[in-house]
């Protein structure tokens, strides 16, 4: 039941750092999530934690003990891969028993262990069934039972839901969370889906280009993304980013864009000159549906994209980039129609245009 510590870990492949000087702590018995786009190094980091790969630099500690040189079995780590990879020709019982059979344990001990873990995961009544006869949630439980039966203390889930239909995913996410709470072990989820991380991870490490760019709770990261990359990536709908300028004249500061200008009260810490402005689609609204906001302007509809119960309205407002506006309803309009949209200043993000780091949130500048 370890607290996991990763200390200055790097892994090179053909001289290139796939994981680049990563340090982090994963609290015991938590649901932790490593989130990143393809080739961000998240899968390699998981393999390093699992003991499937040796780091070129740094070390990994489980409860203070250096496990860098140990393999997965000695670390008591189990991995469930994409699709949960169950054997289709074996019953749930035999699937769970397969690692024990490989270890050549006596039959009655295998039976005892499988039944115990099956009871734990509430699937004892499904043990004689084949994977094709099980529901998605049951398959997931069987795969996790197979991981647990080897007395694993840490369970690594490598993009377990990625190939499933999104409708199935809706329920599987909650199921994964429930299982972690029931078994009370360390579960580490590796995913490329920000929404999955948001809905599951108690703590989330966001990776990009081999490094952890931000680590925190969902609220921390959503409220204060450290840079443009996290802002864009960590959201339900990608954050709008467009160019702006901080203008200071006779102690009066303002934020200027191609189409609007906002006076700023507390802009002392902001440098003059160009900045990047971030605005989440869900913080914008269509005026005819939600009423006037602090800043309002007009745009031309490029597409109304209906995402189930919500709509993302793509508009051209003359900012150079198209803007996305989230509407919590089905809202269909013709391409080319003009609509009024708006937002409140506190919801703005200001990023540096040099290194793209977060400089301030709108709330800090008007308060």
């Amino acid at each position, binding site marked *: 039941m370890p607290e996991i510590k990763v200390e200055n870990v790097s892994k090179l492949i053909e001289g290139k750092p796939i994981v680049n000087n990563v340090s982090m702590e994963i609290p015991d018995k938590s649901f932790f999530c490593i989130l990143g786009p393809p080739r961000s190094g998240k899968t390699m980091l998981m393999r390093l934690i699992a003991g499937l790969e040796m780091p070129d630099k740094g070390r990994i500690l489980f409860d203070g003990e250096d496990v860098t040189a140990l393999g997965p079995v000695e670390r008591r780590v189990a991995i469930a891969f994409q699709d949960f990879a169950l054997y289709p020709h074996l019953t749930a019982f035999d699937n769970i028993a397969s690692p024990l059979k490989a270890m050549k344990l006596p039959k009655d001990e295998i039976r005892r262990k499988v039944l115990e873990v099956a009871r734990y995961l509430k699937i004892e009544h499904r043990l004689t069934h084949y994977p094709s006869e099980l529901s998605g949630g049951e398959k997931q439980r069987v795969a996790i039972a197979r991981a647990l039966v080897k007395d694993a203390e840490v369970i690594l889930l490598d993009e377990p839901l990625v190939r499933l239909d999104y409708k199935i995913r809706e329920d599987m996410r909650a199921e994964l*969370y429930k299982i972690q709470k029931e078994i009370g072990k360390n579960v580490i989820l590796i995913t490329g889906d920000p929404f999955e991380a948001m809905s599951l991870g108690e703590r989330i490490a966001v990776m990009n280009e081999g490094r952890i760019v931000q680590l925190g709770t969902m609220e921390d990261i959503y409220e204060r993304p450290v840079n443009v990359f996290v802002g864009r990536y960590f959201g339900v709908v990608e954050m709008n980013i467009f160019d702006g300028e901080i203008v200071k004249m006779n102690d009066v500061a303002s934020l200027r864009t191609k189409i609007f200008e906002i006076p700023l009260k507390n802009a002392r810490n902001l440098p003059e000159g160009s900045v990047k402005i971030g605005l989440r689609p869900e913080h914008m609204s269509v005026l005819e549906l939600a009423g006037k906001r602090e800043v309002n302007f007009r745009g031309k509809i490029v597409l109304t994209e209906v995402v189930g119960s919500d709509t993302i309205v793509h508009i051209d407002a003359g900012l150079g980039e198209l803007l996305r506006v989230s509407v919590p309803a089905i809202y269909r309009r013709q391409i080319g129609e003009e609509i009024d949209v708006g937002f409140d200043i506190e919801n703005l993000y200001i990023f540096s245009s040099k290194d793209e780091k977060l400089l301030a949130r709108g709330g800090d500048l008007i308060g």
Partner: protein
Amino acid sequence: MVRIFLDHVTKIFGDKKKRVVAVDDVTLDIPDGAFVGLLGPSGCGKTTTLRIIAGLETPTKGRVYFNEEDVTDWEPRKRNVAMVFQFPVLYPTITVYENIALPLKAAKEPEAEVRKKVKEIAELVGITEFLGEKPVRLDVNVRQKVALAKALIRDPSVFILDEPLTVLDPKARIELRTKLKEIQLGLKKTMIYVTHDQTEALTLAEKIAVMNAGKILQYDTPEALYNNPANTFVGWFIGNPGMNLIECNVVEENDKLYLSTEGGFRYDISFIADELKKLGLPKNVVLGIRPEFVEIGSGPLEAKCVHVEYAGNRIILHLESYDRTLKAKTPITVKAKPGDTLRIDFVKEKIKLFDPKTGNAIL
């Protein structure tokens, strides 16, 4: 200019030992110039339906009409249907221009005419700058646009699009969706769009046929599918997340009508008592309520919060209410954490009732 009509079409694969009914008595009317979606999970029969329309499969039973003409036995070529698939089908060793021009050259059109048409279509689709390139050197987003241009140039009577946008990156997907919509509005061609993704269908199509297990369950506008699902499957399949479906008994007590369960779930539905009585007062129903119409804070029901999913400025609460589970989608300003006990209510006019046996809507 084609109106397509499927008249009681059934397609059975296999032999006597193993029969698979892929399409089960489907009747579908696609008006001339309409943009229609075929939506359903994998294995629902949508692709077979599309292949029957294109003439790539012959139905076991039923007829296919293009306008007044029975085309059931017509070859694909004669039907003049253009298809765009999930993965763009192009000749890799000839240029984009030659790829697009191919159908016209095969029809022996004069060179000047070919050049004019290719130029027009390339502009429409937005690939003029790539005409001299070979497909192998282009990314999949551009290649799919070329495939679309190649389909358009034949001036077909019907377009069939089989999940053409799934392999594209998000930015290109938005761009091509807009393009498709514009092209359809401009050319007024009959377009049939097949997908498992509700967003694609709801965004593009005027009317959507939702399919499951070989049958069309509902053929309606996006708004109607969302507001008035004809059955529990459509209620669940459309929406993010889908509709809550709660099996209940209907009980009459002291002049009031309740939905109730053995575990103590109890909800007053006297406001629809008259309508339900007209229907002969069913004993059991499935209560359908969308997560966005579950209200948190006050109300007649108690619910325990077991999980909170964050979705931007809204949250999805997973609730246990007596012996039933349901989800609520509410603004993030509603503070709730796992373990909290909450009071909940439903937006009354949004309540749907379904028959537990057939799954069909009754109210």
